[in-house]
């Protein structure tokens, strides 16, 4: 109402005494109501679109995976577990790829934790320019097209004459998981109250003892969140694995890529169903333990 009155005041010199003034106020408030509703409508519609878009693909894949038919028809003609059974019983190449992906992601994440936590401890709280530079180097794989990094590493291994192996695959994956662990660990260290450590030290704790009993428990949630996110990205990565795995080893996302590209086997939907369920479960557990959503922002 204040708005309408102010505008009405601007409208004419004698608005206050004008008998038509009251009518003008009513008209202005109608306009402001229209204005408010158009705003709510536009934002509401876009917001609904966005929520539906976020959910729909996941729901559709899970529903399709229970089809009884031989194609990815939606809605499915009938319901069955057959594709999950086919996945479990006669898809050794998919299960093999799954196990390889798990191994690579687990080893790469473990190596990343050791390297990145140590590095974060050394430089996260330093203010010097060089420390900021090193930090942006450690975070750079998050922004660079990983495909370019994969090609670059392949050329390096070719030049060095090492050829491709499980080890080269793991090296490539460490380069893309370490930044996640580094980022969340550094963020936790920045929130750490240094006076806690100073008290521990002044009470006679050795640096190692103070680290184990004070720092580590306080940053463990950050480390766990980074490790989880890094693990998921490694498990999902195609670009690096495409260049760095040898002829015999095929990771799960690349296996899936080939299935989707060639014959669109319904088993791809069953694999997706398993991965979605596993991700949802792990995410809820990790949210309780480490508050991962906070670290993704």
């Amino acid at each position, binding site marked *: 109402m204040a708005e309408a009155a102010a505008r009405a005041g601007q409208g004419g010199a004698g608005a206050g005494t004008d008998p038509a003034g009251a009518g003008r106020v009513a008209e202005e408030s109608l306009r402001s109501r229209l204005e408010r509703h158009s*705003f709510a409508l536009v934002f509401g519609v876009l917001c609904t679109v966005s929520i539906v*878009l976020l959910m729909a693909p996941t729901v559709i894949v899970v529903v399709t995976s229970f089809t009884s038919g031989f194609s990815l028809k939606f809605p499915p003609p009938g319901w069955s577990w057959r594709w999950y059974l086919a996945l479990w019983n006669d898809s050794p190449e998919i299960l093999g790829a799954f196990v390889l992906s798990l191994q690579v992601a687990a080893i790469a994440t473990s190596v990343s934790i050791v390297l990145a936590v140590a590095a974060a401890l050394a430089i996260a709280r330093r203010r010097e320019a060089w420390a900021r530079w090193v930090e942006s180097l450690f975070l750079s794989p998050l922004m660079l097209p990983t495909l370019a990094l994969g090609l*670059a590493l392949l050329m390096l291994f070719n030049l060095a004459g090492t050829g491709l192996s499980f080890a080269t695959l793991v090296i490539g994956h460490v380069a893309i998981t370490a930044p996640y662990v580094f980022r969340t660990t550094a963020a936790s260290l920045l929130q750490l109250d240094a006076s806690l450590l100073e008290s521990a030290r002044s009470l006679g704790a050795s640096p190692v003892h103070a680290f184990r009993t004070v720092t580590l428990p306080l940053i463990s949630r950050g480390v766990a969140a980074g490790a989880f996110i890094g693990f998921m990205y490694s498990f999902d990565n195609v670009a690096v694995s495409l260049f760095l795995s040898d002829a015999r080893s095929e990771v799960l996302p690349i296996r899936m890529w080939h299935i989707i590209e060639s014959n669109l086997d319904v088993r791809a939907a069953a694999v997706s169903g398993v991965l979605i369920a596993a991700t949802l479960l792990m995410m809820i557990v990790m949210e309780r333990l480490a508050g991962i*959503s906070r670290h993704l922002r």
Partner: protein
Amino acid sequence: MSAAAASPGPAARSAAPAPARSAATGPMPLALPLALFFAVFVVMPLALLAYVSVHDDPALTTFGLSQYRKFLGDAFNLAVLGNTLWLGLKVTLLTLAIGYPLAWFYTLAAPRWQALLMLLIVLPLLTSAVVRTFAWVVILGRQGIVNTVLTGWGWIDAPLKLLYTPGAVTVALAQIELPLMVLPLITALSNIDPALRQASLALGAGRWRTFVQVTLPLSMPGLLAGCLLVFASSVSAFVTQTLVGGGRQMFMPFYLYQQAIQANDYPFAATIAVILLVSVLAVVTAVNLLARRSRGFVHG
């Protein structure tokens, strides 16, 4: 899910009282192993990439810029680069248009709903990108839900060819990258003092004017961060580009892969990689400069 409410945003860095040396800072040599790893397996390969790209032949005997001349002098190559950057721009604008209202809705929602919304936003982000791409192949396929609904309602007679079109890649990528836009926006919007918006409304500015003149400028750092993340990951989204885009549309990542693995032309593949890297870095640098100016807007 209570953690979602706390928000140690990018502001945490400037607020943290971190003296150059404190008990919380570990000895410098602890950074050496990772620094060494990055020197050998990130910096050196990228330098090698640049080195290989300035050679005329795969055997690396003659030094020269012929690869760059070959790339920049050919209309097909330039179209691939243009298509890729244009795709990145379209996806970024689309995610911004639908992501901003969602981020705003999140900041207004009750804590219990915030936890649920956060789950909805984060779950797709952590779900495999191959799975999310596969979902779009199912949705847009000849027997997918879109064609089923349209034929069911009698709007079309024969299923439309939706997959392998430029529109399909844009929409699928926008959905896949949406969380990367929404999360920084949520951080930025949660940091805005609600009193500013209320003051603007109380002083007579309408909803739209308050949004354009108060909320939007104050959320600029998060908005730019989101745009950067979405742009960088959509131009290099190899899997979605190939599976939803199909073989007819060529983008830089697949072009790079094709030249390296299928044509075995490493110098040219390296050139494509360098040009892709430089384009992404140029956009990142430009947006970062903008972000620095907009941050002055927020705190100054």
